[in-house]
C-alpha cells in the first residue's frame, strides 16, 4: 500500500477575470507566462470557442522589478543603469530621455555635438529595436531565415556600439549634461559600412516576406484596430501610425536635433499586423537616412557641457586640484543637486511615447521617478486586437505589438 503522495500546490499569482465561458464547451487556456511567443513574461488567459478567441485577459507584471522604488534610493547618476534596462532593445533612447528630463529640471543645455550624437544614437537604437521586433515576430511565424539575417545585422550593430560604449545590450552611455565618452577613431567609417550592409540584408527580407503568400495570409486583416480605438486605448508609436494616424513626437514636438532633419513618417492603411510590420521596416529605412544626414552634420566640440553641477571634472584636474576633487566627490557620493520641481519629458521610443515624470525635492536623489511606458499601455489595449480572431493569430499580433517586458512591468 503506497503512502499518499502529499499534494504539491503552488500559489497562483493572478486571479483571472472569468472563470467559465458562456458556453459549456468554451475552453479557457492560459498562454504564458513562460512562453516563447509572449516574449517571456505576459500571460494571456484566453476563452476559446473552438479555435476562435472569445475573451482575453492579459496579465503582465511578471517582470516587475521594482524600478521606481529602487530609483528613489539612488542618486540621479547612479540610476542610469536601471533606466537602460527598461526597453532593453533600444537602451540608448531610455538613457537620453531620462538625461534630458534631469537636464530640463536642472536648466542645463547640452552641447551641439552631444545633441547631434544623441539623435544619431537614438536612431541607431531604433534600428536595433525594430530589427529585434521584426526578427522575433518573423521567427514566431516560422521564418527562421529572416530571423537569422536580421539578428546578424543586429549583431554588427551591437558590436559597433560595444566599441563605443563598452557593452552590447545595456549601455549606460548617457550622462546628465552629455555622454560618457566621445566617438573612437574610425567609428563613423564603420557606421557607414554597417548601414550599407543593412541595406543588403533588408532587401533580402523584403524579398522573402513582402509578397509571401503565407505571410500575407497570416498577417493581413489580423489584429485590426481603428484609429479611434487606438487613441482611446492609448496606443502610440508604430501601432498608432499603422492605423493611419500621423502622430510622431519627432515631428509634432521635435526634441534633440530632429527639427533639422529631413525625414518622412511612414503611416499605414489598415491597422493590421502587416501594416505594423511594414511601418517598422520603413521606419528603419528612414532612420538610416537620418543617420546618414547626421554623419554629415555632426559638429566638432566637447561632448559634455562645462557645468560643475552635473559634469564630472577631468581626471587630471581631480588628481591635482582640490576643488575638482571635492566636486567629483560630491557628484559621486551625493549626486548632482537638482532643484525642486517636476518635469515630464517624452521621447519617441521605438514602441511609442516613452515619458519620464520626475519629481525632485532638491538634493541628489529623486523623490519620485515614474516611467510612462508604451508597452504597458499597449497591454491594456491589446485585448481589442486579439478578441474575435483565431488562437494562432495571437502569435503574429503579439509579435507586432512588440511588448518589451522590462518596459511594461518596470
Amino acid at each position, binding site marked *: 500500500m503506497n503512502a499518499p503522495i502529499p499534494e504539491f500546490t503552488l500559489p497562483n499569482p493572478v486571479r483571472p477575470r472569468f472563470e467559465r465561458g458562456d458556453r459549456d464547451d468554451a475552453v479557457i487556456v492560459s498562454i504564458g507566462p513562460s512562453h516563447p511567443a509572449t516574449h517571456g513574461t505576459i500571460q494571456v488567459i484566453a476563452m476559446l470557442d473552438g479555435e476562435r478567441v472569445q475573451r482575453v485577459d492579459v496579465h503582465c507584471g511578471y517582470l516587475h522589478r521594482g524600478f521606481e522604488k529602487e530609483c528613489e534610493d539612488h542618486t540621479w547618476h547612479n540610476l542610469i543603469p536601471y533606466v537602460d534596462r527598461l526597453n532593453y532593445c533600444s537602451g540608448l533612447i531610455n538613457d537620453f530621455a531620462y538625461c534630458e528630463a534631469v537636464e530640463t529640471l536642472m536648466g542645463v543645455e547640452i552641447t551641439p555635438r552631444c545633441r547631434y550624437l544623441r539623435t544619431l544614437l537614438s536612431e541607431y537604437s531604433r534600428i536595433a529595436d525594430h530589427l529585434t521586433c521584426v526578427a522575433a515576430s518573423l521567427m514566431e511565424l516560422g521564418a527562421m531565415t529572416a530571423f537569422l539575417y536580421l539578428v546578424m545585422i543586429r549583431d554588427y550593430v551591437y558590436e559597433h556600439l560595444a566599441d563605443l560604449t563598452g557593452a552590447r545590450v545595456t549601455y549606460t552611455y548617457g550622462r546628465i549634461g552629455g555622454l560618457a565618452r566621445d566617438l573612437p577613431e574610425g567609428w563613423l567609417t564603420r557606421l557607414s559600412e554597417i548601414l550599407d550592409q543593412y541595406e543588403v540584408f533588408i532587401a533580402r527580407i523584403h524579398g522573402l516576406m513582402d509578397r509571401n503568400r503565407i505571410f500575407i495570409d497570416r498577417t493581413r486583416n489580423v489584429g485590426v484596430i481603428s484609429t479611434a480605438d487606438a487613441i*482611446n486605448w492609448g496606443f502610440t508609436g508604430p501601432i498608432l501610425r499603422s492605423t493611419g494616424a500621423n502622430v510622431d513626437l519627432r515631428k509634432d514636438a521635435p526634441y534633440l536635433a530632429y527639427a533639422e532633419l529631413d525625414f518622412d513618417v511612414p503611416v499605414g492603411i489598415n491597422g493590421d499586423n502587416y501594416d505594423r510590420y511594414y511601418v517598422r521596416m520603413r521606419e528603419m529605412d528612414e532612420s538610416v537616412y537620418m543617420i546618414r544626414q547626421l554623419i554629415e552634420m555632426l559638429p566638432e566640440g566637447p561632448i559634455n557641457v562645462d557645468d560643475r553641477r552635473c559634469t564630472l571634472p577631468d581626471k587630471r584636474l581631480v588628481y591635482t586640484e582640490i576643488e575638482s576633487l571635492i566636486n567629483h566627490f560630491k557628484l559621486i557620493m551625493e549626486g548632482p543637486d537638482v532643484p525642486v520641481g517636476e518635469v515630464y519629458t517624452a521621447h519617441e521610443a521605438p514602441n511609442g511615447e516613452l515619458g519620464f515624470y520626475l519629481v525632485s525635492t532638491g538634493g541628489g536623489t529623486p523623490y519620485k521617478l515614474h516611467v510612462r511606458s508604451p508597452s*504597458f499601455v499597449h497591454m491594456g489595449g491589446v485585448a481589442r486586437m486579439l478578441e474575435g480572431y483565431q488562437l494562432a493569430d495571437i502569435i503574429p499580433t503579439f509579435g507586432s505589438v512588440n511588448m518589451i517586458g522590462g518596459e511594461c512591468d518596470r
Partner: protein
Amino acid sequence: MTAPILDLVETQLVLPGGEASRSHGMLAIVVPAAAFLDSARRLKSEFGFDLFLDVTAIDWPQRTPRFDVVYHFYSTSHRTRVRLKVRVPQDEPVVDSLVSLYGAAHFMERECHDMYGIVFRGNDDLRPILLYEGFEGHPLRKDYPKLQEQPLVPYRS
C-alpha cells in the same frame, strides 16, 4: 512657446479650490476631487485632449492631503500636453475613474492602485497588475521598506 490651447484651458478649467502653474513648459492644474471627472470630460470633448498618457501618484507623508494623483493628457490635434493633479487624503484615497472616457485608464489605474493604494471609483477591476495576489501593502508609499520581500515560494534551505 506654449500652445494657445493651454491659455484657454488655464482660464476655463481652473475652478475655485484649484490652482494652475507652469513649469518647464507644461501647464499643471490642481483640481478638487469632486470636480475631477467633469474637468477630464471637458478636457477630452471641448479642448481635444484625446490621448490619455499616464496616471500616477506622489506620496507626501508629511502633508495632510497625503497623495497627489497626477494625470497627463496629450492632444494629437494641438500637439501639446497638460497635467492634472488631484489631492486625496490618506484615510479616503478615492478618485473618480476615467474608464468611461478612456480605455487606457483600465490598466493604468490598476497600476496606481497597486503601487499606492488609490481607489478609483468606477473602475470595477482593481486587481493587482504588477504585483501578485497575496501581496500586502503598497510598495511605492514612502512607509513601505524597499527590502521587505513577500515570497510566494519558500526558499530552499
